Structure formats: structure tokens, C-alpha cells
């Protein structure tokens, strides 16, 4: 993918370029450079590992938002066979910021729903940068209820800066749409596994994210507000985004430690964009494992466990 490397990835990109140059030179002049390339590739792997191990929270936010990462439709196209995309909320219009449909993960029929971003301006105008309007959430609701009626598990792929803030979105009840989805998922009589694949932007992410299992990719983030928004409110300076990202505890390891997600799906060295196929495969394997575990539970048991999990969330003291 052609999009530029992030600032802190520059040493990786530089080394990748050197290796590529060397390989091109070798093939042009029919030289054997295997001995020269091997140490460079070892160094590249080391560099990737080291840079990604030491990412600051805000650098993770940049990785999570990076357009080189696999998006919902990349996961769907690679993991879901027999996919039939289903459109529309039956009330107003089809919202391309959310995609969904029927398909198979392995041999299991599933309903899959994801927030879809775009890689270029044209695609982003269509997908609205993955920011759904109420009709997007209502399409997702319709598909969840379809899954419930036919006892199919639901997979959701979360990747959004947040719900769209706009005139029409408010007129058509953005708050109501999100509130209804959250309540519906709380009582949905079929398994639901959510995966945060990129940026988990607050209520707009949670509107697809109340599940029996919530997984998060290693470099994905999940936050109640963007670091920029938080800094603007607290310190009246969106430039303090690094400080806000640190404070918000929005990285996958932080969220796991707080008991707010159930599992971290490891990414390849250098991030999901370094080897998209490997990242997608890891997500597929985790999904199959969790769906197999959940498939055996009677609906009442499933609901009781889901309720218990969410009712326990929160930290406070009681005098």
C-alpha cells in the first residue's frame, strides 16, 4: 500500500528501501546478494519489533488510524466466504459508513457488521471516514435482530473516529440510535463478538461493541474521547494530545488491565499494515475460537453472563 510511513516508522521505511534497492540491483546485474541481504532483513525485523514495542499511546492512536491497516471489508473479504452484503435501515437510507451482511466464517453462518473507512478522498467521502449516521446504526440493529431470529452469531468490526456529528444526524436521533443499539446488544439472544480493529471512537464504537467477548488488536485503541478533543476541553489546547492520550488509558494493554476488553489479538511485527494477511488471519483464528466457545451456551446462560460482565464494570469506593 502506497500511503506514507508515520514519522517514527521512518527508520523502518529507510531500511526497507535499502533492501529493495539492493534486490533490484542484484536482479538487474544477476548478482547473488543473499549474504548481504540476510543481516539487513534481520536488522529490519529487530527494528520493527523495537519501534513497535516502545510506541507511546499517541503513536498507537496514529497507527490505529493509519489507512494502510486492514479495514472491515479487508477482513470480510479475506475471512468470510459466501458473503452477501445487506443494505439499508428500511427507514431512511443505506449508510456506507457501516457495512454488513451474511456469510460464513469457516463452516459457521454468521452476520458480520463493520465500520468502513476509506483509503482515499473519494472513498472517504462515500464512507464518511467511518463515521456513521443514525441510519448506519439502525442498519446494524436490523442485522443484529436478523441474526437473533435465525440464531446466527454476530461479529462486529469496530473502526471509527466516532458517530458523525452533524445536523441531519441529530435531527434523525443519533443519541436514540446509539442508545437503542447498546440496549439491544445487552439483551440479544445470540452470541456477539466485537473486535476493535482500528480506532474505537467512544459511543459511536460502543454502538457496535456490547459483546460476549470484546477483542482488540494490539495497536488498536479505544477511548471515550479523542486525545485531541480531551486536550481541547481540559487544557484548551488540542496540541496537548500526547498528554491526553497518556492520561486516557486507551491502549490495548491498558484496557485489558482494566478488565474492559477480553483479549488482545497480537499484530505482526511492525503492525497490522506490515503484514495485513497475517493480522487478518490472527483475527479469524481468534473469532473462530470464541464463537466455538459461545456456541454451546443456552441463550439464557449467554445473556446472564453478558449482563454480569457489564454490571461488574466500574471502579468506586463505598463507605
Amino acid at each position, binding site marked *: 500500500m502506497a500511503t506514507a510511513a508515520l514519522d517514527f516508522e521512518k527508520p523502518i521505511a529507510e531500511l526497507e528501501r535499502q533492501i529493495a534497492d539492493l534486490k533490484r540491483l542484484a536482479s538487474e546485474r544477476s548478482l547473488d546478494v543473499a549474504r548481504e541481504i540476510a543481516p539487513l532483513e534481520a536488522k529490519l525485523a529487530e527494528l520493527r519489533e523495537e519501534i513497535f514495542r516502545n510506541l507511546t499511546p499517541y503513536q498507537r492512536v496514529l497507527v490505529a488510524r493509519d489507512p494502510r491497516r486492514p479495514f472491515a471489508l479487508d477482513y470480510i473479504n479475506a475471512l468470510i466466504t459466501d458473503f452477501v452484503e445487506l443494505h439499508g435501515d428500511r427507514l431512511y437510507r443505506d449508510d456506507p459508513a457501516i457495512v454488513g451482511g451474511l456469510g460464513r466464517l469457516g463452516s459457521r453462518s454468521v452476520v458480520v457488521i463493520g465500520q468502513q473507512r476509506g483509503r482515499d478522498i473519494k472513498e472517504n467521502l462515500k464512507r464518511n471516514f467511518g463515521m456513521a449516521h443514525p441510519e448506519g446504526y439502525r442498519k446494524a440493529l436490523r442485522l443484529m435482530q436478523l441474526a437473533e431470529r435465525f440464531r446466527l452469531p454476530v461479529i462486529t468490526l469496530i473502526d471509527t473516529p466516532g*458517530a*458523525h*456529528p*452533524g*445536523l441531519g*444526524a*441529530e*435531527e*434523525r*436521533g*443519533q*443519541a*436514540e440510535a*446509539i*442508545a*437503542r443499539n*447498546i*440496549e*439491544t446488544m*445487552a*439483551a440479544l439472544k445470540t452470541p456477539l463478538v466485537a473486535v476493535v480493529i482500528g480506532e474505537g471512537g*467512544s*459511543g459511536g464504537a*460502543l*454502538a457496535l*461493541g*456490547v459483546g460476549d467477548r470484546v477483542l482488540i488488536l494490539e495497536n488498536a485503541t*479505544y*477511548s*471515550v*474521547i479523542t486525545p485531541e*478533543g*480531551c486536550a481541547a*476541553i*481540559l487544557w484548551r489546547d488540542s496540541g496537548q494530545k500526547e498528554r491526553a492520550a497518556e*492520561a*486516557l*488509558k*486507551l491502549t490495548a494493554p491498558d*484496557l485489558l488491565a*482494566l478488565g*474492559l476488553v477480553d483479549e488482545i489479538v497480537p499484530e505482526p511485527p511492525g503492525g497490522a499494515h506490515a503484514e495485513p494477511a497475517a493480522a487478518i488471519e490472527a483475527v479469524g483464528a481468534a473469532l473462530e475460537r470464541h464463537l466455538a466457545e459461545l456456541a454451546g451456551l443456552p441463550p439464557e446462560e449467554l445473556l446472564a453472563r*453478558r*449482563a454480569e460482565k*457489564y*454490571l461488574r*464494570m*466500574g*471502579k*468506586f*469506593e*463505598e*463507605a
Partner: protein
Amino acid sequence: MDARDKFERNSGVCPACGHHRRIGADQYIALLADEGSWTPLDRGLRSVDALGFESYRERLNVAMKKAGREEAVRTGAATMDGEPVYLAVMDFRFMGGSMGSVVGEKIARLARRSREERTPLVIVSASGGARMQEGVLSLMQLAKTSVAIAQLREAGVPFVSVLTDPTTGGVSASFAFQGDVILAEPGAVIGFAGARVIKQTIGQDLPEGFQTAEFLLEHGMLDAVVPRGRLAATCAQVLRLLEGKPAPDVERAS
């Protein structure tokens, strides 16, 4: 009597123009609960700084001085116009009525009591949204309260949601819009995104009255706009109807 006294005596509603000024949770309780009927619950819950978020403790201390130690929601048992209810009233003075773990827990406990005792739930919301100093813990309070409301709905116990100025962000995107009946005070600002953010995003001015209760009523998002002075009677009326109870004057006549 000066203008300020008139405001006070009228529960913060201007006697001349009907403007509804923001009032605190204590004033709502005095207004909505029948005299002597209020029994507070879960008063000992206190927020903790689970993330080590800079200056959260200081902000909590300031909020407690301003609005009392009971956090951004007060919950209890009461009667409203004679009807037994579990009542929660949010307090905008406490960190903008933001929902953190304590608010989520108090709402969830109240909804559980409401379900177990089959006594209706009334929640008066006033909140700017989730409390960012609690990070995703606060976001998950949307899910937690929604689980409790979903269980209440499943049990068929009525829930009346009352939206006051302002009801936005995470509270609007959870229990505030999950009522069996949703009422709002005149002029209250209600919505998901803040008007400033929307204005920035779309780069144009917003229409007159955008995100007010009247605007939401017109767009089909509310059941009714009810003046503050009529809230208790209207909630009680709705609850009696939902529960198939006779009207109070019918009861007296029989």
C-alpha cells in the same frame, strides 16, 4: 419579593417568560417527590481515580464542595403524586453531570431495585456525557446502565425518562433515550454531539432552536415537552396508565 425570590419559589422557572433555569438535584427532589416521601439510597458511593488521571481528585473535591458528596446523581425511593417510584436525579453542578463509575453503579442498582420490587423507575437526566477522567471505564457505564434498563424492560416495569438541560453525549446515548416514555423540559438542550463540534464539522451556522426539546419533539424524538411544574403529575399519570391503575379522582369517588 425580588426577581431572584420569584425564581426560587417557582423552582427556577421565570414567572414572566417561562424560561427554565438549571436547578440542582436537591431542588428537583423537593419538587418531584411528595413531601416527606424521599428515602435516599446508595449515598456512600465515591469516585476513585482509577486511571491516575491528572487533576481528577482535585476536580472531584471542587465538585463535592459545589454540589455535595453524593456525586452527579442522587437516587432514592419516593412517591410522586402518590405513586411509589424509584427516582434518580442527575446533578449538572457535579462535574457537568458527567457519568463515571459511581453514576453508572447508582443507576444500575436503582434499576435492579425497580425490577425486583416491580416499582416504576423515573430518571431525571442532566449531563454533558461520559466522564473523560475515567476513560473507557466511563464509556462502559453506557453499557452497564443499558444492561440494567434492558432487564427492567424485559420484566415489564415502566421507566419514564425526563430530559432536562442539558442531556447530551453518553447519557443521551444510553438510559436517557431508553425510557418507555420520554419527557423533556421546555428549552432543554438535548442531543448527542455538542453544537460547537457540529458547527465546526459542517462549517455553517445551526438553525434557530437546534437541539432544543421543542426541536426534538418536532423530529419525533420525544413523547412530550412538559413544564417543570407539571413533571411530577405527568409522570404519575403516565405510570398509572401504564400499570392499569385507576385515576386518583376515580379512586376517591369509589
